[in-house]
C-alpha cells in the first residue's frame, strides 16, 4: 500500500469541506462518535441534512468565527492506498497556507463550482500548485447536480482550463465531473453522467502513478547526522545518517562528497534490520564509505559524475509568509536548505508574480505577506542544490528571521548566478 499526499484547494463554498467529508465518510475514516457529534451540531445549526463539511471543522476560534485558519491534515485509507489530505482553506492567508500544504503534496485537487466556471481563484490554485512542483493536478468540476449533469458545461470548463494550463509546469491533469453532496463520481462512477468515461475521483487517487515523481536520476544524500557508536562492538563504525534526496544509491557506487570534492565508494547502506542493496528518496538510511573522510552535517554525498550546483548566489521564487515584516533588497536572514543552515542577504527583488495571471511585475522591489516574487540571494556559505523544478528536496529552502526565530518565507531555487 502506497502513501499519497494531496492538497485540496477551492474557493469558499465550492464544496471542498463537503468533498473531504464524503471521502472520509465513505472510506470509513469517520468514526461513529465523531459522526454523532457532527449530526448533533448540524441539528443545532438548523441544517436539513448532516453537514459533511463539519467533519473538517477544527479549532475553537474558527468554530466561533465560522472560519478556518490554517492547514489541517486528514487521513483516510482504502485497501489500495493511504491518503494524507492537506486541507488548505481559502481566504486571507490563502497563498501562505496553500504553499505550505502543497510543499509535500504529490497531487493537488482543485474544485470548481460548475455554475460559476473558472474563477480567478481557480487559476491561482493551479499556478501555486505548478510553482510548488506538484506533478499531478485533478480538476473536479463540482455541483454537477445543479447544472443537470450537463456534459457541455463540464467540457466547456475543461477546455478552458486546459488552454490556460498550457502555461503551467504540471505534468498531468485530470478532469472529473462530480457532485460532492450527492456523491456522484466521488467513490463510484455516477449513473447520472453516463457520458463521462473516466474514473471516479477515488479510483483516480488510488491509481495515479507517483513512484516516478521523485528525482531518481541525480544521486543526492544530504548528511544529517554522523553516527559514531564508540562502543566495543562497533569500535570503528562511522556512518552518515540522512534522507535520500535524489537518485538511487547502491553499495559500490562511486560518490563525491561536497564541499570537499573528495571521492570514495559506498561500502554499505545500513539499517537496523540489516544492510540494504539500494536506497531511493525519501528513505532514511545510514551510509558508510570505503574511505575515512572528514564529513559532517550539512555536507552532501552525490554521484561522482553528477554534482548539483555549488553556489552562493542564486535566483529563486520566494513566498513571503510574515505579517509584520517584508522582504526588500538588503534584508538579512537565516536560511535552511537540505541539512545546511547559513545566512543570506537579499540582493534584489526582480519581480513580483501575479498569482492570478502569471504576469510578472518588474517594478516592485518589496514582497509582503502572501506575495510571491523572484529574488536574487547571496549566502554566506555555498549551497548544494538543483533547480526546484528538477528536485523538490534539494531545490527548496526556508528563510528564518533571526530576531523572532520565525519562518518568514518559503523558497524554490531557479538557477545559480555567475
Amino acid at each position, binding site marked *: 500500500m502506497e502513501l499519497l499526499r494531496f492538497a485540496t484547494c477551492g474557493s469558499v463554498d465550492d464544496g471542498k469541506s463537503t468533498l473531504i467529508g464524503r471521502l472520509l465518510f465513505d472510506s470509513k475514516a469517520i468514526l461513529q462518535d465523531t459522526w454523532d457529534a457532527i449530526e448533533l451540531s448540524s441539528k443545532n445549526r438548523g441544517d436539513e441534512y448532516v453537514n459533511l463539511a463539519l467533519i473538517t471543522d477544527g479549532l475553537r476560534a474558527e468554530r466561533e468565527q465560522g472560519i478556518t485558519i490554517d492547514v489541517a491534515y486528514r487521513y483516510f485509507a482504502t485497501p489500495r492506498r493511504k491518503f494524507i489530505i492537506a486541507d488548505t482553506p481559502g481566504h486571507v492567508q490563502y497563498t501562505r497556507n496553500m504553499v505550505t500544504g502543497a510543499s509535500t503534496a504529490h497531487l493537488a485537487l482543485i474544485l470548481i463550482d460548475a455554475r460559476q466556471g473558472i474563477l480567478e481563484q481557480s487559476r491561482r490554485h493551479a499556478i501555486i500548485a505548478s510553482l510548488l512542483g506538484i506533478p499531478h493536478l485533478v480538476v473536479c468540476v463540482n455541483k454537477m447536480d445543479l447544472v443537470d449533469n450537463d456534459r457541455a458545461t463540464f467540457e466547456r470548463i475543461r477546455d478552458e482550463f486546459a488552454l490556460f494550463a498550457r502555461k503551467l509546469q504540471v505534468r498531468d491533469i485530470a478532469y472529473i465531473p462530480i457532485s460532492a453532496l450527492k456523491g456522484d463520481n466521488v467513490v463510484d462512477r455516477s449513473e447520472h453522467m453516463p457520458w463521462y468515461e473516466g474514473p471516479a475521483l477515488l479510483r483516480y487517487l488510488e491509481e495515479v502513478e507517483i513512484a516516478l515523481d521523485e528525482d531518481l536520476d541525480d544521486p543526492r544524500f544530504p548528511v544529517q547526522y554522523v553516527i559514531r557508536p564508540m562502543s566495543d562492538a562497533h569500535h570503528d*563504525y562511522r556512518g552518515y545518517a540522512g534522507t535520500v534526496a535524489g537518485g538511487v544509491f547502491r553499495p559500490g557506487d562511486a560518490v563525491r562528497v561536497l564541499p570537499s570534492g573528495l571521492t570514495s565508494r559506498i561500502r554499505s547502506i545500513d539499517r537496523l534490520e540489516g544492510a540494504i542493496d539500494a536506497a531511493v528518496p525519501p528513505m*532514511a538510511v545510514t551510509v558508510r564509505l570505503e574511505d575515512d573522510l572528514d564529513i559532517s552535517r550539512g555536507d552532501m554525498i552525490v554521484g561522482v559524475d553528477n554534482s548539483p550546483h555549488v553556489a552562493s548566489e542564486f535566483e529563486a521564487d520566494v513566498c513571503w509568509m510574515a505579517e509584520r515584516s517584508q522582504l526588500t533588497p538588503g534584508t538579512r536572514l537565516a536560511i535552511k536548505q537540505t541539512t545546511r543552515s547559513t545566512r543570506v542577504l537579499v540582493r534584489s527583488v526582480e519581480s513580483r508574480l501575479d498569482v492570478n495571471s502569471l504576469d510578472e511585475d518588474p517594478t516592485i522591489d518589496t514582497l509582503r505577506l502572501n506575495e510571491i516574487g523572484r529574488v536574487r540571494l547571496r549566502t554566506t556559505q555555498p549551497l548544494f542544490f538543483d533547480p526546484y523544478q528538477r528536485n523538490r528536496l534539494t531545490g527548496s529552502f526556508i528563510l528564518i528571521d533571526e530576531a523572532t526565530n520565525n519562518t518568514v518565507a518559503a523558497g524554490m531555487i531557479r538557477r545559480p548566478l555567475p
Partner: protein
Amino acid sequence: MTTALERAQLARLSHLQALEAESIHIIREVAAEFERPGLLFSGGKDSIVMLRLAEKAFWPAKIPFPAVHIDTGHNFPEAIEYRDRRVAELGIRLVVGSVQQAIDEGRIRDETGPRASRNRLQTQVLLETIAAHRFDAVFGGARRDEEKARAKERVYSFRDDFGQWDPKSQRPELWNLYNGRHGQGEHFRVFPLSNWTELDIWQYIADEDIEIPAIYFAHRRDVFRRDGMLMAVGPFVERLPGEDPFEANVRFRTVGDMTCTAAVESDAFSLEQVMAEIAITRISERGQTRADDRFSEAAMEDRKREGYF
C-alpha cells in the same frame, strides 16, 4: 544501469516505509539541532513505536537522549515493567517526573472524589521536569488523527517560556525543513508520529514484531461501567453508588493513568485479532477510552494551551 521499470519498483515504498522514513528524519533532525532533547515514554503503544524509531534512527549507536516518563503514580504495573525493561535493553537514561512526589512536596494538590484524575496534574509536572532538565525539545507520540484540535498541530510545536501552546503563533512547516530555533526557556514539543493513524501504529507493531504490554490484549479483569465506558477496578478509583464491579474480557486501546483510561470489551488475544477489531470499530480511540476528553468538545484544546502533551 537500472531500467525504468526496476526504478519504479525500487521507488515504490509502502505507506509504512514512507511514514517510518519521515519519522526517522524528524528524530535525527532534532538530535542534530537541539542541545537537550528528551523522549516522552509512557509504555503506551505510540511511545513504544516512537522509541523503536529512535532506536533505528541512530543504530548502531545508542539513542543520544534520555527517555522521560511523567509518572502519575496511577500506572498499570505492566506498563512500568515494560518501560524499565526496554530502557535497560537500549542502555539509555530514564528521567522520571513524579506526580506523587510533587503532591507530597506540596507543589500541587491532588484531586479527590470519585472522578479524581491526575491527568491535569501531569501537565504541571511535565513542565517542571522540562525546566529542571533544561530540555529544549521533547518528543511526544501524539498523532494528528487522534482528535480534531490535533489536525492542525505542527510536527515542531512551539511552546513559550510558560510551556504554553498558541494555535496562532505556530510556524509554517514546509517540505522536510523544520525550524527549531528558539530563545532561552522556550522549547518544542516534537511529534514524529504526526502523520500516523491508529491503524498504522498497529500494523507497524505487527510488521516489526514489536513487543507491547499485555494489557493491550484481551484479558479477564474486574471492571465497572461509568458514562458508558468500562473502567478498571483498582486502588486509585473510587466507585460511585451503582457502579458495581463485574468481570469481563477486556483490552485497553491506550495506556495512561488508570483513573482515566477505560477498557473495551474484547476477545482479541493476538495482535491480528486486535487489528481486526480496530478495523471494524466505529468509535474513535479517544472518544471510546479517554474519560478526560469527554467533558467538552474543546477539552483537548484547552489542555494543550496549558501545556499538556
